[in-house]
């Protein structure tokens, strides 16, 4: 059966999983890590770096390293989130041709889905390397608060990466799926997700029929583990300044090392009470003398440094429960998601707030990807009982007089669905109405996302409130939203089909797919060549090592000398193929090298 991969496309880290022999499993990358930094960089030489390697040069090549692209995906150029990102990002964000935003790396501008596609492609390669065959189908997770455009942009990113995204699911839902895997759960669950760059709290209702309802979700897209790292860096910089009167922030290399060391120390302090940060030759003093940084960081100091950040997450939890009119004791289980939740102080704070310890049943770094993989397996295997129904992530409705938002389809409604409501005119002799289709939960229209608009004309001139207009929202099984407005008196009708857009046209997406494919082919060819090169070099070295012995053994025979000359020729030609990067020729020469090596070994064995 075809494998479906589950991808947790995170703001700071991504993770890929599959279901193997009925068990969901996370696939480690080549470095052995189960998560891969969601970072993309382009080096001075134009080389593309993705993952850990991009992270390691994030500060020294800050202008050309993209991180947290997820904060921008599917957002319009004019949105406050984009403005915020422009102010805080080290890379350049520019306006795209469709009021979207683009990221400038070196001399090229990339759309946000394109950048996300590079990360997804990396996750795909990790899975393919592990499975040993090509992978097409994927389930990708997104935050519960993502609107249709953001979800569509994520889907587009998957398509650019060469994936068939069979479902987009909410991250807390995926975490809950992983938690509920293999057991019959019917609970109200709080998912506290503190990742590298974002914090989300979601309350879900898990029903026995497989419906996972997100009752409430909130968070802070600029709060996460990186803020804790930054506090440690501040502490280290200040300590060094006090000792040497040198500001390490002025040196990018020093700052890169500080950031790496801070993250490492933070992780270590989740399991030990004290750790040493040792950075030899961190900077050179004015007298060209190299200085070292060596400092011990205790867990209680880290807790002190980050206490206000932890407090902020608790405040958001409190607000979310209040908004959802839920009491703490109505929560049956608390799931901790995200690497930061390994910090004992955070576990304590969550336990203190909810009045109970969090569940140990899910792995904080892996559960979202695992949940996505579980969902993926269920979607292609009809024998599996678990069915996750598609629900609307946000309420849908229209703007009414006074800039209010009138909800027609509530959040978390199972699709397909259809709802109708009657509206009237708001002014005397009004002959036309503008239907502004929106998505969101705010009562104020301006706080919600506009999906589309149309005008219904030809209404009868009458005092306000007399003409009745029926508005119908319909979402089909494919998630396509249609809105229809009908003058009940005349039967006149206007409609619109709302299609979520990532900000990219079909042509653009097609070009990006081609470009990504090309890159992938180049990468695969290069990898194949590297493998062959290593094999050829190893064989050539072994043959060369055997030359003296073989020469000695066959010295007396003309035939032997001829064979040696031939062997030298084979080695030379193989090396020429390596230098010319000629994969096809190298493949052929490897056969020759193998034969020669076997023959030489045989000669040496017989001669002894």
């Amino acid at each position, binding site marked *: 059966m075809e494998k479906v991969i589950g991808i947790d496309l995170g703001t700071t880290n991504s993770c890929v999983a599959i279901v193997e022999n009925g068990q969901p499993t996370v696939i480690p990358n080549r470095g052995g890590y189960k998560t891969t930094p969601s970072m993309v960089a382009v080096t001075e030489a134009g080389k593309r770096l993705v993952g850990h390697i991009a992270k390691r040069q994030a500060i020294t090549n800050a202008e050309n390293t993209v991180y947290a692209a997820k904060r921008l995906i599917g957002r319009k150029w004019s949105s406050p989130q984009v403005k915020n990102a422009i102010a805080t990002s080290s890379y350049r964000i520019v306006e795209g041709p469709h009021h979207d935003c683009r990221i400038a790396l070196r001399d090229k501008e990339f759309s946000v889905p394109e950048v996300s596609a590079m990360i997804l492609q990396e996750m795909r390669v990790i899975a393919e390397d592990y499975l040993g065959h090509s992978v097409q189908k994927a389930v990708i997770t997104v935050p519960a608060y993502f609107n249709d455009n953001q979800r569509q942009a994520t889907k587009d990113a998957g398509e650019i990466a060469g994936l068939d995204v069979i479902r987009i699911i909410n991250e807390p839902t995926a975490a809950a799926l992983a938690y509920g895997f293999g057991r019959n759960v019917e609970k109200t669950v709080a998912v506290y997700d503190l990742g590298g760059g974002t914090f989300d709290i979601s309350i879900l209702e898990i029903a026995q029929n497989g419906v996972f309802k997100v009752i409430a979700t909130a968070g802070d897209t600029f709060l996460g583990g990186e803020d804790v790292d930054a506090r440690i860096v501040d502490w280290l910089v200040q300590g060094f300044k006090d000792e040497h009167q040198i500001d390490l922030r002025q040196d990018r290399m020093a700052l890169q090392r500080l950031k790496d060391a801070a993250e490492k120390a933070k992780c270590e302090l989740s399991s030990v009470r004290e750790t040493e940060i040792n950075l030899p*030759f961190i*900077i050179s003093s004015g007298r060209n003398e190299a200085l070292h940084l060596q400092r011990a960081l205790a867990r209680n100091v880290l807790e002190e440094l980050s206490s206000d950040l932890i407090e902020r997450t608790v405040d958001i939890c409190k607000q979310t429960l209040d908004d959802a009119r839920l009491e703490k004791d109505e929560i049956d289980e608390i799931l901790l998601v995200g690497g930061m939740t390994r910090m004992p102080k955070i576990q304590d704070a969550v336990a203190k707030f909810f009045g109970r310890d969090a569940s140990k049943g899910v792995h904080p770094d892996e559960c979202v990807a695992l949940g996505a993989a579980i969902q993926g397996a269920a979607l292609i295997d009809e024998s599996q009982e678990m069915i996750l129904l598609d629900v609307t992530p946000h309420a849908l409705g229209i703007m009414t007089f006074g800039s209010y938002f009138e909800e027609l389809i509530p959040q978390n409604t199972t699709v397909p669905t259809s709802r109708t409501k009657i509206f009237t005119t708001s002014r005397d002799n009004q002959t036309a109405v503008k239907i502004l289709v929106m998505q969101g939960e705010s009562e104020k229209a301006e706080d919600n996302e506009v999906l589309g608009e149309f005008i219904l004309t030809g209404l009868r001139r009458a005092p306000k409130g007399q003409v009745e207009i029926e508005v119908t929202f319909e979402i089909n099984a494919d998630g396509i939203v249609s809105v229809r407005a009908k003058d009940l008196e005349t039967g006149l009708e206007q409609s619109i089909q709302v299609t979520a857009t990532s900000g990219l046209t079909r042509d653009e997406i097609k070009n990006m797919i081609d470009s990504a494919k090309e890159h992938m082919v180049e990468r695969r060819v290069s990898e194949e060549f590297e493998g062959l090169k290593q094999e050829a070099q190893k064989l050539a070295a072994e043959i060369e090592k055997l030359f003296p012995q073989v020469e000695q053994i066959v010295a007396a025979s003309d035939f032997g000398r001829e064979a040696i000359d031939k062997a030298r020729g084979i080695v030379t030609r193989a090396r020429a193929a390596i230098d*010319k990067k000629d994969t096809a020729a190298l493949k052929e020469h490897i056969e020759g090298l193998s034969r020669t090596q076997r023959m030489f070994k045989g000669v040496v064995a017989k001669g002894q």
Partner: protein
Amino acid sequence: MVDDDELDKSWPDDDAEKNRPTLAPPQPDPKREPEPATKPKRETPAVLRLDSASQFERPDPSAVISRRGRESLLGLADGAPADDLSLDPEPSEALDLVAAEAERATPVVPLPPPVPPAQSSGRIVEPVTEMRERFSLGDYSGALVVAESILEEEPSHAEALQCETSCRQVLEQMYTARIGPLDRVPFVAVPQEQLRWLNLDHRAGFVLSHVDGNCSLEQILDVSGMPPLDALRILFELLQQRVIGFR
């Protein structure tokens, strides 16, 4: 034993030689009196043709490598095992040694044709002459330093820019040849607690921090955030000082 002259004749077209991957550093011939590093090499008409329009056209790096390959072959022909060919020069020799040896062993850069007067301010005419001389003598590191100093004063100085690029490319090629295949993964050969007693600067410290036993040399170059030449030079020096090694 293969004759030097014989190799010189066949060298430019000899793909097999050019493509030898064993890019071990050249071994000075103990029987031969080393020539002064500054002595220009005039006797190499076929090796590298410089366009008369530009005396700073980059010497063909493959020519540099070919020469190294040739010397490796000589070593092998003499019966020395490939491993014995790796040179372990004095730490202090570093870059100048590379340049000097390349010049001494490999006459890749013929004396440049007469150069038209530099179109720049009179103040930097002398450095320009020095830069040309150093380049023509194969002292690429010296020429690079002078070119950079000229560019500091006059960033758009065309000749200095061209010389800088050429020097960097040749030196990068030389260091790469010295270090060996860039897909190898280095490890730190000095115990952590002894690291601070080494004589390194913060840039070397930064490069060293990327040596983790997982990253290849190529990846370290990618993440170093330094010009490739600087990173290669540091890696080469770390290797020379046995701070890093390969398993």
